[in-house]
């Protein structure tokens, strides 16, 4: 009998996960990738299950990716966006969660603007909670699909050098990537203007630089984050053009980097700010493959949490 590797009803972040758990999600995702290559891109694994996409922040791509993933598993999908829900009438997150539970849904996929919201919801409901991004905290499925793509491109994660460039301080994608990559043995460097590097990054296992050429030097891959100028309350960010001049990834900069460096971006891209169009559309860019892989990774996550939760419920009734 094999040991249960995945026992969690929720996926809240990569910080809590072991290397084995991350690898298990990724290897399961490999099997799911095949499903999307079929003529009939659908398996009945979650037939009769209901997945609720609960999005408190506008997000098209993550929501659509989860929706496609759930549908390819034959689950029913309900989308709740903040504009149409009762959130604005002042219902608490816990009440919302309990109401969704009363609808007999099985999985809540939640995007929330407050860090820790997914963890709080998961503590208060018995159904599965998948964190689709909470504040600046974590965005585990994005990091998993980034790592999945890197593994596909480079053959391994152990020992590879990955640089994450952009607003690290306010990035859940950066945090999840740092946890995931370092757990799997990659060497991670983060690169940003000093004011966008939060304290304690080294203790999380990443190296820090504010020199983009240094970050590109010798890197096997670079993950370029979206600059969220629209969120800059304090107007402390550098100007867009200045940012592009100092940190934007261009073909000239890449001349000094490894020839087959992998270029990633979680999207949506600000062309001409984080990277030039030539780079975004160039031979080293895997940005669209990331989108494809996102489906496989999310299918894997939805399947595993649903399965684990069935086991948890079964054990409870057995007691």
């Amino acid at each position, binding site marked *: 009998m094999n040991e249960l590797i995945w026992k969690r009803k929720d996926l809240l972040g990569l910080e809590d996960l072991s290397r084995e758990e991350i690898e298990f999600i990724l290897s399961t995702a490999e099997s799911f990738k095949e499903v999307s290559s079929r003529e009939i891109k659908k398996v009945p694994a979650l037939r009769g299950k209901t997945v609720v996409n609960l999005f408190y922040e506008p997000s098209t791509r993550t929501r659509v990716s989860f929706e496609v993933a759930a549908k390819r598993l034959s689950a029913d999908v309900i989308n709740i966006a903040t504009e149409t829900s009762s959130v604005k009438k002042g219902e*608490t997150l816990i009440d919302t969660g309990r109401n969704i539970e009363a609808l007999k849904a099985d999985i809540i996929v939640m995007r*929330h603007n407050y860090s*820790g919201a997914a*963890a709080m919801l998961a503590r208060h409901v018995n159904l599965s909670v998948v964190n689709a991004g909470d*504040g600046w*905290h974590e965005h585990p499925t994005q990091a998993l699909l980034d790592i999945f793509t890197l593994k596909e491109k480079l053959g391994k994660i152990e020992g590879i050098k990955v640089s994450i460039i952009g607003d690290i301080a306010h990035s*859940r994608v950066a945090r999840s990537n740092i946890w995931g990559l370092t757990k799997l043995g990659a060497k991670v460097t983060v690169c940003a203007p000093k004011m966008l590097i*939060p304290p304690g990054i080294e*203790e*999380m296992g990443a190296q820090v630089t504010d020199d983009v050429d240094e970050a590109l030097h010798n890197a096997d891959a670079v993950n370029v984050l979206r600059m969220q100028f629209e969120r800059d309350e304090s107007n402390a960010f550098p100007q867009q053009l200045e940012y592009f001049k100092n940190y934007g990834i261009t073909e000239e900069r890449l001349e000094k980097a490894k020839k087959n460096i992998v270029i990633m971006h979680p999207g949506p891209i600000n062309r001409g700010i984080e990277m030039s169009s030539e780079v975004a559309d160039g031979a080293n860019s895997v940005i669209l493959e990331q989108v494809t892989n996102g489906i496989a990774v999310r299918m894997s996550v939805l399947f595993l949490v649903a399965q684990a939760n069935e086991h948890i419920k079964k054990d409870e009734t057995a007691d």
Partner: protein
Amino acid sequence: MKLLIKSGRVIDPANKLDEVCDILIESGKISKVAKNIKAAADKTIDAAGKIVLPGLVDMHVHLREPGREDKETVSSGTKAALKGGVTSVLAMPNTNPAMDSTENIKLLQKIIKDSAKADVFICGAITKGRLGQELSDIKALKKQGAVAISDDGASVDSDKLMEEALKLSRDEGLILISHAEDKALSNKGVVNLGLTSTRLGLKGISKESEYKRVARDVELAEKLKSPIHIAHVSCKESVEIIAKAKKRGAKVTCETAPHYFSLTEEAVLNYDTNMKMNPPLRGKEDLEAIRQGLKNGTIDAIASDHAPHTENEKDIEFERAEFGVTGLETELAVAITELVDTGLLSLSGLAEKMSLNPAKILKINKGTLSVGAPADLVIVDPDKEWLVEKSAFVSKSKNSPFLQRTLKGVVEYTIKNGIHC
């Protein structure tokens, strides 16, 4: 009415007393402290194996009344105090209305008269509405009965206004209690700035925002030769600044709260909103500095910073949840568990921090078991353990950071003015 307490280990640092003896109480006052008192009493309490301490004086309590009676009232808060062995509290002025005028203090005094179960002393507001714009009539506040002034919850940002306030409090003989926080530096943070804030993806509150303001306030007070008391010290640098000032002879005192010597920022890592307070839980070296500060006398007092909040205000997203934790019912046991049991403080040292020193700082006739003093005392079983459970709180609010912790030290009797409450 005569009450005789037999064979307890009596701890009274004011009289340098720590021995097993009896206490006789008559007409609400201590009438005799001696071995083998033979007197006919109306009631005798056998305190063998127990310790007898002066009733605790908690100089930092938010009773929430008037204004937020859903969180706490003078009645429920003082009931909670007695349960925790606290017989006197200083009510902080951030009520609605704030305690910034004679009228408002009168309003609170009426509520106290009608419903308080323990002694409630009033802290007036330094500025009108605690807005840091215009000084309250500090002289009038004192005349009406305030024993201290503070804008707690907010700091007086203006140096000039702070100087004025310190002069007035000095001249009036009122202690000024400083909530040391530069809000420009704490920048809407919710947890300690550092690895923890980064891991959690939350805005951080730097230690700088606290200790820079401590440094400013100490400097101003020193210059004006005014006494000053620094509230809820949470970090190493603040302790160091205060230690140096004391060495120079500045009239500075300070307090810390039980959570700062028992918990670190690690406790916040699962977004437990009961671990959210201001200043925030800090790092291990800060906790150690606080403990050493208590041991070496840099920190004069322990106060709960009892800050009750309803579940609605705590059972929400971390960033939206209110700052603050309750503390009246757990502070003595936390102190026994974390400070006495670990050998950091003697029982006598504990009574100084939690009873004698706060009474001295506030210049109130409390905190001793001297003959003739009001018979406020607490009888504690120092070895008995108990589990902190939500259902057992008598405070209206249950937002304790110690829920489900096992603590040592059970309050068996709280006696107020000679009457067992």
